[in-house]
């Protein structure tokens, strides 16, 4: 499933729509950067409370398909512009991590 389809299905706000045609492999939910570096897989869509600049670097390094910021915790302009530079899909939801992970999981593994 593409990022575009997920954005529509889950009603996400695209803060940075870098590549909405990108295929999503699965989800990864974590607030610990080292854990994401070690365990997320290329193509995963990362669900997190984190919103600092390193999120973009980690997403880039692991070739993640995008990042969903939860609970309306929008990252700042520095993070958004870095994500745009690095071509990282940056999405926002008002839902909590549990709920958005649950809904994404149901969408990807019906």
């Amino acid at each position, binding site marked *: 499933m593409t990022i575009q389809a997920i954005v529509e299905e889950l009603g996400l706000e695209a803060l940075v729509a870098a590549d909405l045609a990108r295929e999503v492999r699965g989800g990864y939910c974590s607030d610990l950067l080292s854990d994401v570096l070690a365990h997320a897989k290329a193509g995963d869509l990362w669900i997190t409370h984190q919103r600092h600049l390193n999120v973009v670097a980690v997403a880039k390094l692991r070739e993640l398909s995008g990042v969903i910021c939860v609970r309306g915790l929008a990252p700042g302009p520095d993070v958004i512009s870095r994500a745009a530079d690095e071509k990282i899909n940056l999405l926002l939801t008002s839902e909590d*991590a549990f709920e958005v992970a649950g809904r994404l999981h149901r969408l990807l593994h019906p």
Partner: protein
Amino acid sequence: MKLQALAELVGARFLTGADQGEREVTRAFAADLLSDVLAMVREEGVLLITGTVTPQVVRVAEVMNMGAILFVRGKLPTPATVEYAAGAGVPLLATGKIMYETCGILYQHGVLPAKRKGLPMDHVPPNPAHP
């Protein structure tokens, strides 16, 4: 959902509190950062799904009167932390599954997201500068 049923769904085992298997949890909250738990969870008896295994997780669960802690990603707290949780009456469960899949399975089986609490950041513009 009873803790026992929940444990079976996500392939979790009880580290302590197996005698609490009949305890009901209806809502869950997933996070690794403890201040997020303190800031965002409103009601009591919530299941905390986390990959953080420090002793402070149990303290936070106590402060927030949470129903149980479910550790994900195969991470385990120290025996001292398990012992403390046993004394505090906080059931601890652990699964090797990742947080995403754990949330997915529980959500699919009707566990609800925890009710929201007004956050400090709901009142201020997002994103302070970071060092």
